[in-house]
């Protein structure tokens, strides 16, 4: 009696419920007009999807989703909200049809693409036959870091990661300059506050 038996049913149920919650949150985000509520809900969305990644054994993706989705992107979206109004413009029903069609088309394409994916846990899949196994076998001798993802990112593909870090740094710099977290925003906000304070 370790408490682990019957886990399969529980995990299946958990996956279904988490996906259902994600669906509900996505619908709510699409329907809401208050931008603040949308920012909060997108934070909740990334929290729940990170939990779902944990349930799917993708721990590293869950780490990233938690740090970026729930942490930084909430702050950035709030900063962006400073520069705009507080509510979204209501959409006409006729124009809302086009995004719906696009979403349905992309969804159909994705479902079609999943047919070509190898089965879950297939030993002959590309991920398990080529360079992946080599990394798993050689990392303990080559580098000695317990986390293989870290070894791949920081050593085997070190230059690739360096370039990525450069791109991300440039992007972060651009976002910060655009949102103006520095002194320029200070004078701007104080000036705006003096004109008409919102409650």
């Amino acid at each position, binding site marked *: 009696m370790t408490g682990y038996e019957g886990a399969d049913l529980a995990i299946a149920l958990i996956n279904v419920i988490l996906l259902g919650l994600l669906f509900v949150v996505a619908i709510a985000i699409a329907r809401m007009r208050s931008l603040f509520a949308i920012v909060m809900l997108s934070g909740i969305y990334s929290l729940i999807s990170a939990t779902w990644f944990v349930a799917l054994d993708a721990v590293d993706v869950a780490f990233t989703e938690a740090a970026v989705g729930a942490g930084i992107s909430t702050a950035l979206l709030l900063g962006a909200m400073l520069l705009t109004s*507080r509510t979204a413009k209501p959409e006409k029903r006729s124009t809302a049809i086009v995004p719906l069609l696009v979403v349905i088309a992309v969804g159909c394409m994705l479902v079609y693409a999943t047919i070509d994916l190898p089965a879950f846990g297939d030993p002959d899949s590309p991920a398990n036959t080529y360079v992946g196994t080599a990394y798993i076998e050689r990392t303990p001798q080559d580098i000695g870091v317990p986390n293989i993802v870290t070894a791949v990112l920081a050593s085997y593909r070190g230059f690739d990661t360096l370039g990525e870090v450069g791109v991300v740094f440039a992007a972060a710099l651009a976002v910060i300059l655009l949102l103006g977290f520095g002194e320029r925003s200070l004078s701007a906000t104080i000036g705006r506050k003096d004109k008409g304070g919102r*409650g």
Partner: protein
Amino acid sequence: MSEILNVIMTIKPILGALLCLIGAGLAVIGTVGVLRFPDFYTRLHAASVTDTGAATIAIVGMALLAPSWLIVFKLAAIWLFLFLTGPTGSHALANAAHTAGLQPVIGRQRDRAGESDSEEAS
């Protein structure tokens, strides 16, 4: 002596799972409170049941299930973080609401559950 140890070792996982279940039940109760209470400040109290009681009981239950001391240490770290950051977060929340001028509902409440008396503050 070893018999007592045996009994403890068989009881431990059951007790741990039971405590986890109790903690989860407390979390549900706290959430029900958050849904039912009439205004923001009272909801804060209901949420603090989850932050303290449910978290502590569930973490103790998980510690009883843990296979190694490393896990117990991590659980202790989580508990410490929750206990240090939880009240700071709720105080910041209450303080921000109070500073913004959100008035609390004062006085005895009976059968007013369906009545929502606050409007969008933004």
